[in-house]
């Protein structure tokens, strides 16, 4: 298998801002602005960045849940954008989502049985006698008892609801799971349960995963490869160990230094950024990070840096490393 499972090529998602009675477009939000990455089968890819960097939009556009304004997404070499609706729908079985908020992503009027059966009903799989076994198997896999099936979401705690969401995502036997902040809403002790569950599931079902999160520690723990995004662009991408050991982009360095470490003896020197995230409606010229970068040079304001390679699979877009 030499083709990657998923290849995203120069993906752009622009949201027009409509104003006034006639809906005149007065501006464009550059949510995702030229993102490319590959996902190999069995790999876990992490996308990190702060709020508004476009990580969720990139994830959704990769599944064509949001139509990208530009760029292509290839599933095993085939362009998803050119697929017929029927074919795309069939493909959706293979890619499933886990959402951040386990409170709003489950319909409160449906029982757990209905919630987990729903995707199987839609795609007409595991019908008839198989269905009951499938449901019990799924509940067991995520660590819930079979009698959970006839209860409603409000009867469960946050961690258990997230397990239900995961069971629903697994129902169609997917190849790829995209988790959008799957553990952010959970308490620390519950977060560990879900992280361990995701890692176990990945191994036993031979899944590929994309984990979107703002929490670098969580992403580093789960993922094989990590992409760091800033204002709609990838600034650095690397495997998990070399990103932490040798961060190249000043933004990655800042992000890593900003995370409080639970060890009172280790006093890290925090890099404190000035100012706030610029608006994605009018992103800064040149390197998008130049307005806040502690190592800014003259060239950064005018010329956009290109992705530069640093050994195997580690790339970063920064002028500091030109020639």
């Amino acid at each position, binding site marked *: 298998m030499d083709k990657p499972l998923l290849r995203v090529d120069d993906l752009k998602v622009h949201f027009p801002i409509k104003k006034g009675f006639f809906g005149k477009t007065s501006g464009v939000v550059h949510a995702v602005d030229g993102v490319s990455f590959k996902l190999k089968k069995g790999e876990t890819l992490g996308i990190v960045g702060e709020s508004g960097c476009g990580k969720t939009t990139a994830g959704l556009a990769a599944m064509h849940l949001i139509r990208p304004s530009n760029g292509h997404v290839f599933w095993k070499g085939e362009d998803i954008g050119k697929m017929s609706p029927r074919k795309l729908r069939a493909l959706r079985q293979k890619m499933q989502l886990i959402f951040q908020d386990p409170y709003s992503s489950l319909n409160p009027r449906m029982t757990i049985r209905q919630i987990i059966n729903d995707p199987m009903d839609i795609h007409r799989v595991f019908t008839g006698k198989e269905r009951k076994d499938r449901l019990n198997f799924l509940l067991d896999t995520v660590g819930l008892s079979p009698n959970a099936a006839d209860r409603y979401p409000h009867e469960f*705690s946050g961690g258990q609801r997230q397990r239900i969401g995961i069971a629903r995502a697994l129902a169609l036997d997917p190849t790829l799971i995209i988790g959008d902040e799957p553990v952010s809403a959970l*308490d620390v002790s519950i977060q560990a349960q879900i992280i361990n569950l995701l890692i176990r599931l990945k191994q036993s079902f031979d899944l590929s995963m994309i984990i979107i999160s703002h929490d670098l520690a969580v992403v580093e723990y789960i993922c094989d490869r990590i992409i760091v995004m800033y204002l709609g662009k990838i600034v650095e991408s690397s495997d998990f*160990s070399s990103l932490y050991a040798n961060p190249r982009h000043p933004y990655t360095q800042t992000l890593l230094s900003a995370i409080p*470490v639970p060890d009172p003896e280790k006093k890290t020197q*925090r890099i404190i950024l000035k100012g706030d995230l610029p608006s994605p409606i009018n992103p800064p010229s040149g390197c998008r990070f130049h307005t806040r970068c502690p190592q800014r040079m003259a060239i950064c304001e005018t010329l956009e840096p290109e992705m530069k390679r640093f050994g195997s699979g580690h790339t970063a877009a920064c002028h500091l490393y030109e020639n």
Partner: protein
Amino acid sequence: MTTRAGLHILSIQELKTYFYSHQGVARAVDGVSFDLNQGEVLGVVGESGCGKSVTAQSIMQLVPDPPGKIVGGKILFHGKNLLDLPPKEFRKIRGSGIAMIFQEPMTSLNPVFTIGDQISEMFRIHKGFGKKQALSSAVEMLGRVQIPSPSKRVNEFPHQLSGGMRQRVMIAMALSCDPEILIADEPTTALDVTVQAQILDLMQTLKQEYNTAIQLITHDLGVIAEMTDRVVVMYAGQVVEEALTLDLFKNTLHPYTRCLLQSIPVLGKRTLNDRRELTEIKGMIPSLTDLPKGCRFNNRCPDTMDICRKQAPKLMGDGSGHKVRCWLHDRSQNHG
């Protein structure tokens, strides 16, 4: 305890705050005691529902009543029990003696007043300043919390500011009357990490400048490690461990604290072939209306003994200031 009594500016003793509902009585804070010393940063850490925020709200007397009620205990501020003060007297302390900042800066600022109005209100009420003087003091406070071009910003409304800026405004408001105690309830939880770093940095600078004692409530053990001098760990409405921060991390006594520390992924700890499985705390946080008998952690604890299911342990100190509520560390009793 009595030897250091002079240092305490705030002393909470056996505080009990209950919520009365149709499902029963939720004992959100159930016999919590701790002291806050002059100029220190005290961390209060715990998961949702452990009572850390309700403790803070009880100190400020902001518990919604009904359904909540402070049913017992004392809150001593300079030796005076705040719970005995008439509301009018307490209002003078709230804001000027003890101030508080909240987690969600958007919901705690009033959207229909400019931030200048909201900060000057502090000066007008507590210090009796006139309109003009209050506004210029507000501009000065905005400068102190490092908001760029404060004289322009003072006329803006909360929705015109970013999350980090709003939290700065909250801090400016809280510090405007030079309080002796600042209670910060999850001040950075709603913020991005780089902005969190800015706010934590600002709090540290201001703490040195004003010599304010800070009670920092958070669920993030990383923030605890970086910011605090002493920590109180809470679980299901009770203090389960109290220690100097360094001591808590190096010489963890309570199984809950230990599990909590082992359950978080730490940056840079993972190597290519070694992914230490995160410790899970089995089960979930007990409902406050239906607490387990004996030790409240007994059904999730990896070290449960017989006695834990029968009798509740007390919070015991070894004399060095490290206190723990656990039968494993109770030397007064012989239990096998």
